[in-house]
């Protein structure tokens, strides 16, 4: 097999991976903040029929796209030297996001 590309920069690919994990972590964080503070929940209620889920999802998606744009601009022409570190960081951020939306954890930090 000869057509595989071992040398082109993959910074843009790693930017997409890490940005997705950042978006999920931000979603978890904003979910917890909304549960801890009624005023934050009210601010996030940008579409009343859906409630604060509309704002949480908007913030999560915006954080993901913003992180992706910034990381892509910085990394797209680069060969990433320590991709294992990005994978590890992404896994940690994903776990934080998953814990952040897990109801027993949300209830615990919100004092329910």
């Amino acid at each position, binding site marked *: *097999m000869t057509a*595989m590309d071992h040398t082109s920069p993959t910074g843009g690919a790693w930017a997409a991976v890490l940005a997705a994990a950042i978006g999920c972590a931000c979603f978890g964080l904003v979910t917890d903040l909304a549960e801890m503070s009624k005023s934050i929940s009210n601010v996030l209620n940008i579409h009343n029929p859906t409630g604060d889920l509309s704002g949480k999802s908007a913030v999560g998606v915006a954080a993901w796209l913003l992180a992706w744009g910034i990381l892509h601009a910085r990394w797209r022409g680069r060969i990433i030297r320590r991709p294992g570190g990005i*994978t590890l960081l992404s896994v940690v951020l994903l776990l934080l996001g998953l814990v952040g939306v897990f109801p027993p954890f949300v209830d615990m930090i919100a004092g329910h």
Partner: protein
Amino acid sequence: MELTSREFWTALHGMVLGAGFLLAFSGGFAALWGLRPDWLTAEGAAKLLRQLAVGSWGMAILAWLAVLLGTYVIYPWYRAKAPAGAGADLLAGFPKYLLLSKPQSKEWHEFGMEWKEHIAWFCPILATAVAFVVARYGQQVAADTKLRRALLILFTVSFFCAAVAGAFGALINKAAPTR
């Protein structure tokens, strides 16, 4: 045999879009797992990459449609506030309040729906990242074990999120149907 408008949109959300994503996952995972230089000819890899790019973008689109339809069309029906003092008959039209009205069913909302409505949003974000990387950096994905492994992690987490959302969606809709 007929579906109300709400039942139609709920079925489209869960049984077409959500189930479509879940069904496509195993094929996508196997293709991504098998995208290895030592397992494929150049021609085979190019063909597999085209299939993966189309399939992973298809899955990302399914995930976005499912989440947007769920959040902005079906969820408002689910969480609509029931009139004060509504009896059991009236509560049937307000699934969230029907579930909360009984101790034995309130966890379906307080645990199941609370988890589902949030974790579901991870799925399209992760699926989009996988689709972008496969479509844009396919040759490098095939050559780079670490990049392929990172994508497999994202892809698997997106499946887990969709599975949690789908399972609770089905169970909650059984306990308190959106009609």
